[in-house]
């Protein structure tokens, strides 16, 4: 099966391309701030469509790889904590978790700036964090509190951070794709040298509006990068059951594409860097990120009726993005096992503190029911369930 072939390859290439002698800890440099460039080769080659694939040699640094570890560990812990909170009924409605896919969020951020835009689906918690969102704002939003990033009015699927050019958080499958192309349109219109990454799943990849938006993006040379997070299941439907052609990176037809090992943060970084350069010069490009989610589609889905537990644990053992980075850090002597474990403990405490803080946060005032409908209210009236009881003039 494809997954086991990958595991052999990844073991072979985790050995550093430049051998680093193991130094005694007493004279080893403090590596968390070491930004000396080092080059790591990706385990899996890129596959390309209508373009030349970027090099597998990724420029990075100890500091960067360490930051990948910390950021992914934080994202992982956040999602696990959300799982718990949902089961204790503190989170309601829909909750779509991203654990397993963290490499995508951190790899992308490493390649771009906060002026490049990102827009994604409802599986948005980690993307929000990647854009600089705070843990306590995320947990507060999930629990419907005032402190939430959307003041408790959005919920899990509607996180936004406009000051970091993160445009949400969208519940309608595929809608974010034309919206993302619109963000790219605005960037081009304003003559800014920035790009938009619009993320969608293998399920959304079949949506007609994708092809409509991509057609316009290609015609008008918009700096739009369509990123298919192929986690192989659209809710409970495997890709082979929903797509006649599951080669999502090729489905842009006249638009170039790249297939990327989405569980390798460095490969993701390389691909996003390549895509940004491409989009600024040549218009849209499609990136297919081969990734995996450990949880089901949402908290209502055990995720085991359409895939075997062996498959899930297999991916966890062989392709887990955090474990891969851990191995890299250890084999390059960037950090010791203890240092990494300590880091994970710190992250766990960070998350636990944020959850505790969010739990204390109050719910929105009842008057918030009627706020933010319009920027310019112009004396609009709004009504509660009993209009004779609750009527408000928006000002």
């Amino acid at each position, binding site marked *: 099966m494809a997954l086991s072939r990958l595991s052999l390859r990844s073991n072979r290439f985790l050995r550093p391309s430049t051998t680093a002698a193991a130094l005694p800890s007493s004279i080893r440099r403090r590596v968390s701030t070491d930004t000396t460039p080092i080059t790591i080769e990706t385990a899996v080659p890129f596959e390309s469509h209508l373009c030349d694939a970027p090099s597998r040699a990724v420029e990075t640094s100890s500091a960067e790889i360490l930051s990948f570890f910390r950021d992914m560990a934080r994202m992982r812990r956040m999602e696990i904590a959300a799982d718990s909170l949902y089961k204790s009924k503190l989170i309601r409605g829909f909750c779509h978790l991203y654990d397993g896919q963290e490499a995508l969020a951190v790899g992308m951020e490493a390649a771009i700036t906060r002026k490049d835009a990102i827009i994604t689906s409802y599986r948005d918690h980690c993307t929000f964090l990647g854009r600089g969102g705070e843990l306590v704002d995320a947990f507060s939003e999930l629990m419907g509190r005032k402190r939430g990033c959307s003041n*408790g009015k959005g919920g899990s699927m509607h996180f936004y951070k*406009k000051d970091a050019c993160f*445009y949400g958080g969208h519940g309608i499958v595929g809608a974010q794709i034309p919206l993302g192309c*619109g963000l790219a349109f605005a960037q081009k*219109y304003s003559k800014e040298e920035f790009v938009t990454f619009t993320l969608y799943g293998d399920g959304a990849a079949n949506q007609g*509006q994708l092809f*409509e*938006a991509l057609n316009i993006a290609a015609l008008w040379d918009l700096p739009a990068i369509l990123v298919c997070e192929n986690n192989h299941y659209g809710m409970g439907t495997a890709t082979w059951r929903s797509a006649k052609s599951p080669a999502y990176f090729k489905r842009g037809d006249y638009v170039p594409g790249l297939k990327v090992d989405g569980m390798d943060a460095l490969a993701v970084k390389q691909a996003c860097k390549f895509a940004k350069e491409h989009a600024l010069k040549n218009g849209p490009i499609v990136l297919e990120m081969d990734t995996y989610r450990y949880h089901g589609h949402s908290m209502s889905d055990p995720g085991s009726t359409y895939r075997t537990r062996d498959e899930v644990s297999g991916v966890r053992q062989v392709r887990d993005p955090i474990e891969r980075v851990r191995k890299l850090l250890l084999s390059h002597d960037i950090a010791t096992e203890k240092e990494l474990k300590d880091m994970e403990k710190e992250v766990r405490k960070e998350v636990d503190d944020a959850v505790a803080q969010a739990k204390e946060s109050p719910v929105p005032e009842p008057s918030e029911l009627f706020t933010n409908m319009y920027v310019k209210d112009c004396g609009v009236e709004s009504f509660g369930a009993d209009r004779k009881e609750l009527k408000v003039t928006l000002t």
Partner: protein
Amino acid sequence: MDFEQSLRRTRSASVSARSYAAGSKEMTVRDALNSAIDEEMSADPKVFVMGEEVGQYQGAYKITKGLLEKYGPERVYDTPITEAGFTGIGVGAAYAGLKPVVEFMTFNFSMQAIDHIINSAAKSNYMSAGQINVPIVFRGPNGAAAGVGAQHSQCYAAWYASVPGLKVLAPYSAEDARGLLKAAIRDPDPVVFLENELLYGESFPISEEALDSSFCLPIGKAKIERQGKDVTIVTFSKMVGFALKAAEKLAEEGISAEVINLRSIRPLDRATINASVRKTSRLVTVEEGFPQHGVCAEICASVVEESFSYLDAPVERIAGADVPMPYAANLERLALPQVEDIVRAAKRACYRSK
């Protein structure tokens, strides 16, 4: 000039001046809309136009005539026939702070893009607690034309006006067209702007004030087109013309009808409507669209709830027939409100026999 200043300069929403200055100008609705878009594009570089045939073809109904020539292809975009795609792109551009004016060749085609109008545009400011506002205008002809059949004749006023987060406007005269479209383009919220194909060619007198580039009408204020004391007739768009004709006929029979032009379907000017009904005690509502769950139903409910003790007769609704629009001319006539329907309803409300 900022919006507040221009607002203070506009007339209040009460009585329209019936005397026109000697040698006053006339303007078609088409020219009114064209000039409004032109002026707003000139004033704000973030405003751009997008839609099918809006550029090189000069607009399917010539509303965007001359704009491509004047502003170039970076302000006027011809799109492929892909409403879901280009509407989503327009909304995304608005997220980023641009001010798109998206044209639907008719609002029937907006159904292909309705998810973006409602879920991507209308609800975003609320869901993001004010982070993402959407300063977009969706405009185009709405309702029946002549002989275009069932798929090209629906009125969408009721559908869009039911959505919190949208503003829905429906101009009647050239002054309405100019003032409301300029207000819509300047507005920081998503606006659905429902025009009428059959009104495009109609000429209306237009004041100097309305011709000024700073002219703007307030959103959410109805206009009393004709004062009266016996019965209130409330309507919007093309039906305003029919209601005015009906008022003339009623006047000949001694019934004084007050005609209210809504201008704004959402927000709905309940205050003006109710104040009028409290004066006349009788209500006739008129719309072109399907009768069930229509705009008229909302107005009737509002009046019954707020002015029940003032009513001297049951509220009346005149609407399109409860059928898909037929093609044959005689059937089409039966499917749409006619002046005689409005007259009959007003007489019923006045307990007058035919």
